[in-house]
């Protein structure tokens, strides 16, 4: 980190995920996906994907089936709110088996 290709040290920051740590720990509500209801999973192609589109954290990849990166998801709930087929529900973190 902070070393250029030429070997010289520099004060340049290097990009990485989790700059603020594991921001998933900020979460109080967890998005849980029901893939049987998901339009993209049913069509098995890149359709709908409103969750990916509106995620302000970029924690969902543009892929099928969708997967939410819970290490960094802050649990805002925009994906659940915007899902046309209501395939995502927000579950309190304390009720999740591995929740904290």
């Amino acid at each position, binding site marked *: 980190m902070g070393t250029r290709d030429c070997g010289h040290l520099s004060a340049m920051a*290097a*990009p990485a995920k989790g700059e603020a740590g594991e921001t998933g720990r900020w979460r109080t509500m967890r998005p849980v996906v029901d893939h049987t209801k998901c339009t993209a999973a049913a069509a098995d192609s890149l359709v709908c994907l409103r969750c990916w589109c509106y995620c302000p*954290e970029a924690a969902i990849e543009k892929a099928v089936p969708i997967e939410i990166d819970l290490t960094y998801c802050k649990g805002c709930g925009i994906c659940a709110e915007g899902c046309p087929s209501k395939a995502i529900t927000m579950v309190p973190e304390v009720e999740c088996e591995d929740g904290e």
Partner: protein
Amino acid sequence: MTNLIDLPGEEYMLPGNRACAGCGLALAYRYILKALDGRAIMCVPASCLTVLGGMYPVSSVRMPWLNVTFPSTAATASGVVAGLKALGRKDVTVVAMAGDGGTVDIGIQALSGAAERNTDLLYICYDNEAYMNTGVQRSSATPKGVKTTTTPVGGKREHKKDMAGIMEAHHLAYIATASPAFPDDLYDKVRKARDMRGTRYIHVYAPCPPGWLFHTKDTVNVGRISVETGAVVLYEIEDGAFRLTGLSKEIADFDELKPLTTYLECQGRFRDLDAATIEELETRVARRWDRYVARDEEADA
């Protein structure tokens, strides 16, 4: 017009950054960077965006990034433009991006100077209508009636400054307003601005859950309602030619605005407004809307 689903999957803003949950700026920023294909140099003053960008030695953005002083965003960007010109680089866009405080209050003289010189840069103001990073202090972009930590009892007494209008008076090649609730519209505008020369200005309205006092899940809803009610109007001015875009154009052509109270009631910052202020806000929004629609029709004719 790009469809939502056709927007590129490549991410330049990385997860695990310092933005709040449900941040409207982060959502807008994701699409701004996608539209730039990561081929840009960012100049960012003190703002929520600096926080989002991260602390040395780690950056949450896969792009060159300069943290600059509050009043010097456009001046620094002008320097970067001059530097790239000296090096003969033409493949990189210089982007100055600041909040409403850094644009409308503190950075306005440097921006006006750069615009007057028509420096080849893209200036993006993300407007969350107060100094949110430092804990919700009013700026001159805060609308009348809004409660912040530095407004008197009853909310702000002055109206919001029309920054896009001020930039229009500089006769720029491209001016646009956008909202993260419509990423396709935002993406198209940044892409169009990227491919133009001279000073370009984009004003992005960024809903802010902790500052505007609404639930984090409602960022996109509030952004959508702001356009549906006319509190925010989506338009672009290309070489002086005005046109409404996206949902604003649809409303102008086929529908009518929803009552402004829908917008005022979906956030806590407008709580306890008196009837006179609500009426004043409604009149202003209605007048402005009529003016925009007239300009749009004029262009269509």
